[in-house]
């Protein structure tokens, strides 16, 4: 598979190279574990400083600076510090971590061992999504290989530092990917997210001990920061948006797939790398960072002021493809799962699809998310079955507003943001459903065809 010239591959550098295998021999031939060996000549706090200096931001969804996350860890409690790799990649539209795990598992192990050494962890976990059994097998084998060569386990690289690494298969629920839900699940319980305060993982995480939970891609980036140095890493991208990111593009483009890029625009990714919309179609909207993120409409202008006072006025394609760029456009880069909706897509049907997913995945712990998500599913499903009622659109908005910001975890936003943003950007489409479908004379045949999957 040819690498597009606009890609900037670091993490996936060798993954798709012909002949490259997940075996340790392949990894070692490409300089694998050299960075880990070199890391032991540094003090853990120096590695932490380096990661902080790199301005690496978390690749899992929230984009929290990884170095800051590490600096919040309670190192005085006397309790063990755990490192957990969040490989519960389940945000719809996201399939990047799977590539790393399937094709280059040792890179993750190396990144984790460097991170574990930097944070004085004696035990690390990879919490991998239940639906990725192949990935779990690959990781298990890779860990055995790494232990055999002394890159993991006891006395790593002869440094006298030891860290055990365990693969834990998840409990097959979206919420297991939420940081504290993951910790509960790892403890063997229902993955109900914890209340914060007091259960901040950095202080009271796994088994009530300080815990670092990082995404797969983030931990791989740590390896590259240590390899190239924080300054070099930070040169990719712009300040506060450093390094490369792997974007997963799906939906109405000619070449969907995963692409690791530096600083480019959304248009460059969608049109140049992914080849733009399918023939005869046009892009209607883009969900930039996984299905929970707010939608971006194609013909909108995205205007505002930069922190330095200068103004920006972007079309959809001009939006810088990074954390701050997409945030400036009113959404979030999230997990990097970009879904392109072309002109054949009915926005209310897309929303109904999402609500069916989120109401199914709500853990049910706290009231607004539990009841609100199913309510929204019931309304949207009814709507796309040709049974909209007057007032449905306003009711949906109100229900979403009653969820957002009032829940234990960010899942509430994941339910509310699509509803709020889809209606805000495509209110006409919803109103049309509401008006025509609440009219008894309307022919519902076409709508019912659309709704085939929304039982």
């Amino acid at each position, binding site marked *: 598979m040819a690498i597009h010239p606009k890609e900037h591959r670091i993490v996936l550098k060798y993954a798709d190279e012909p002949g490259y295998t997940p075996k340790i021999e392949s990894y070692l031939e490409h300089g694998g574990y050299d960075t880990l060996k070199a890391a032991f000549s540094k003090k853990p706090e120096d590695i932490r400083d380096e990661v902080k200096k790199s301005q690496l931001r978390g690749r899992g969804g929230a984009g929290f600076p990884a170095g800051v996350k590490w600096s919040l860890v309670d190192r005085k409690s006397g309790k063990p510090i755990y490192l957990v790799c969040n490989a519960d990649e389940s945000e719809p539209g996201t399939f990047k971590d799977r590539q790393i795990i399937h094709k280059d598992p040792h890179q993750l192990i190396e990144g984790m061992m460097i991170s574990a050494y930097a944070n004085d962890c004696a035990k690390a976990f990879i919490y991998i999504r239940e639906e990725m059994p192949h990935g779990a097998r690959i990781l298990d084998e890779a860990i055995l290989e790494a232990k055999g060569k002394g890159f993991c386990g006891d006395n790593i690289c002869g440094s006298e530092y030891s860290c055990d690494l365990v693969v834990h298969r998840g409990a097959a*629920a979206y919420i297991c990917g939420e940081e504290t839900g993951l910790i509960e699940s790892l403890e063997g319980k*229902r993955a109900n997210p914890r*209340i914060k*305060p*007091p259960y901040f993982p950095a202080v009271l995480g796994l088994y009530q001990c300080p815990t670092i939970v990082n995404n797969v891609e983030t931990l791989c980036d740590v390896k590259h920061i240590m390899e190239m140095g924080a300054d070099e890493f930070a040169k990719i991208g712009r300040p506060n948006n450093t390094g490369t990111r792997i974007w997963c593009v799906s939906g109405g483009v000619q070449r969907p797939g995963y692409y690791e890029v530096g600083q480019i625009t959304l248009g460059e990714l969608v049109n140049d790398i992914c080849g733009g919309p399918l023939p005869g179609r046009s892009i209607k909207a883009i969900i930039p960072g996984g299905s929970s993120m707010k939608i971006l409409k194609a013909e909108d202008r995205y205007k505002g002021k930069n922190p330095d006072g200068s103004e920006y006025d972007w079309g959809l394609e001009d939006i810088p493809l990074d954390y701050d760029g997409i945030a400036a456009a009113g959404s979030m880069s999230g997990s990097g799962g970009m879904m392109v909706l072309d002109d054949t897509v009915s926005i209310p049907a897309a929303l109904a699809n999402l609500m069916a997913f989120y*109401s*199914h*995945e*709500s*853990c*049910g*712990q*706290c*009231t*607004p998310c*539990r*009841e*609100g*998500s*199913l*309510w929204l599913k*019931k*309304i949207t499903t*009814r709507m796309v079955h040709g049974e909209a*009622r007057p007032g449905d659109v306003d*009711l949906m908005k*109100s229900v979403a*507003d*009653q*969820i957002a*910001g*009032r*829940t*234990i975890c960010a899942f509430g936003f994941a339910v509310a943001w699509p509803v709020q943003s889809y209606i805000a950007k495509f209110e006409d489409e919803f109103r049309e459903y509401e008006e025509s479908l609440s009219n008894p004379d309307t022919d519902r045949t076409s709508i019912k065809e659309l709704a085939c999957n929304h039982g």
Partner: protein
Amino acid sequence: MAEEKKDNLVTVNIDGVDVQVPKGTNMIEAAAKVGKEVPHYCYHPKLSIAGNCRMCLVELGMPGRDRATGEPMLNEDGSPKIMWMPGPAIGCGTNAAPGMHIKTNSEKVKEAREGVTEFLLVNHPLDCPICDQAGECRLQEFSASHGRGQGRFTEEKNVKPKRTRLGPRVTLDDERCILCSRCIRFSQEIANDDVLGFTDRGSYSTLTCFPGKELANNYSLNTVDICPVGALTSTDFRFKMRVWFLKETNSIDFETSAGCNTKVSSREGKIYRITPRRNDAVNDTWMPDSGRELYKKVESEDRLQSSLIDGTEVSAQNAVVAASELLNGGNVAIVGSGKATVEEQFALKGIADAIDHKGVYLVARYGEGDGILITEDRNPNVRGALLTGLIDALPEEQLTDLGQKIDSGEVKTVLTTKEDLIAAGLTEAQLSKVSVVYIGAHANPTTAKAKVVIAGLTQFEKSGTLVNVQFRIQKFNKAIPGPKGAIDDLLALSTIQANLSGEEAPSSIGSIWKSIAAEGSVFEGLSFASLSDEGQLLDGSKFSELPFKEGKSLKYDPQTEAVATTE
């Protein structure tokens, strides 16, 4: 409650009012201190914080600090500038920190509560007219006070299991459940019997027992008490009575020396249920299931309906006269009871003092303790008998010594209060040798052999005090009237005492307390009327050497509380 240390206090501001609370106090409790109710479902003061119902959302602000300098930010008038958080925070999970501000009644807060209330109702069956919880249902109350008053939900509601038997005493209606997890946390944290959990997820989450388990522990009915809605119901009380008809009377659980505080609910002289009453020094908000069944003894088949002389029904007055004559005849032994009240024990001591008796006994009852609220001593008031001077050593389970005195002819008459002498080890042959005077509410093998039986009252038909394992004296009140033919045990004992001593003896609780609280006694300064519902610790140091049987329980530790003299 213990006096709070001053340096542990922080000042928080609730709706503009400054209040000092101990550090770590959550905002629901802090608001309660200034008379503000923060509505809540999942929060329970005696359980861990779950934070799942979201009803207690409040606006939260902290004094701002300048990011660059770290200096406090000030308003123009020099007061600290409060930085309000953009979203609401849960009151139950927000602990007091210096300078914290909360708003419990702002528009944002009201709107959040309306939202949560609406969400809780969308899949709720709204079957209040046939629900036992109606009238004491938090959901019903808060829907009225914090809801919008109308529904917008026009979809089909979820269907969940109804009438599920969770255990021998608890029935579950899953459709009414608001998934607050109080019952689950109670089972894990208090009852130490982790059998409840949720299956399925999202709005389909369903409370259930683990496979092959049932909610059968002796504290299962506490889950019914703390269930904020009508999901968990008492199988015994279900569909029996509307709660608003019930009169509540403060009482004490007579099962063991723990002395759980209870509420007896009755209507027109009939008791319908017993529930725990909060006392943080004794039982928190809990009580055993077994104690809730005791009211059934009021109307049990063995209940004595009238007094008897030689098996013939007589008036209580005549029985008391006959008893006095027998006791005046000498060679009397007295068997008191650890189930009697302090007042009754005191009166019995008066009788003992008035005659030349051949011994005063008490019957001990021991069983296994559960480490929670069932203590090893199954008598609720042995310590009362010690403090009144009725006995001076721990009682035996068997009346062996008394049996020998009967056999030797030393004892000719036995006065027993509440105790079945045969159960306590005497034989029918021994009872045939003596004249027995029995005062109590229930028939037993002893009453069949008794010369005089005085029909007394159960604990629900009279008032009195008990001294629990901590030497805490607690009072209970009369909930219902006794049967027509019965006489208050205290009145019977006082009358006998008066007849024997020739002096007028106090016969009401109020007047007898004047004697009990005499100078120099451990009860000095107390009176029945002034004794608070929380009870009061008495000085039991005189008995610190006695080998009490109680082990550690919820609020008692023999290691540290063997001598409970001060708060």
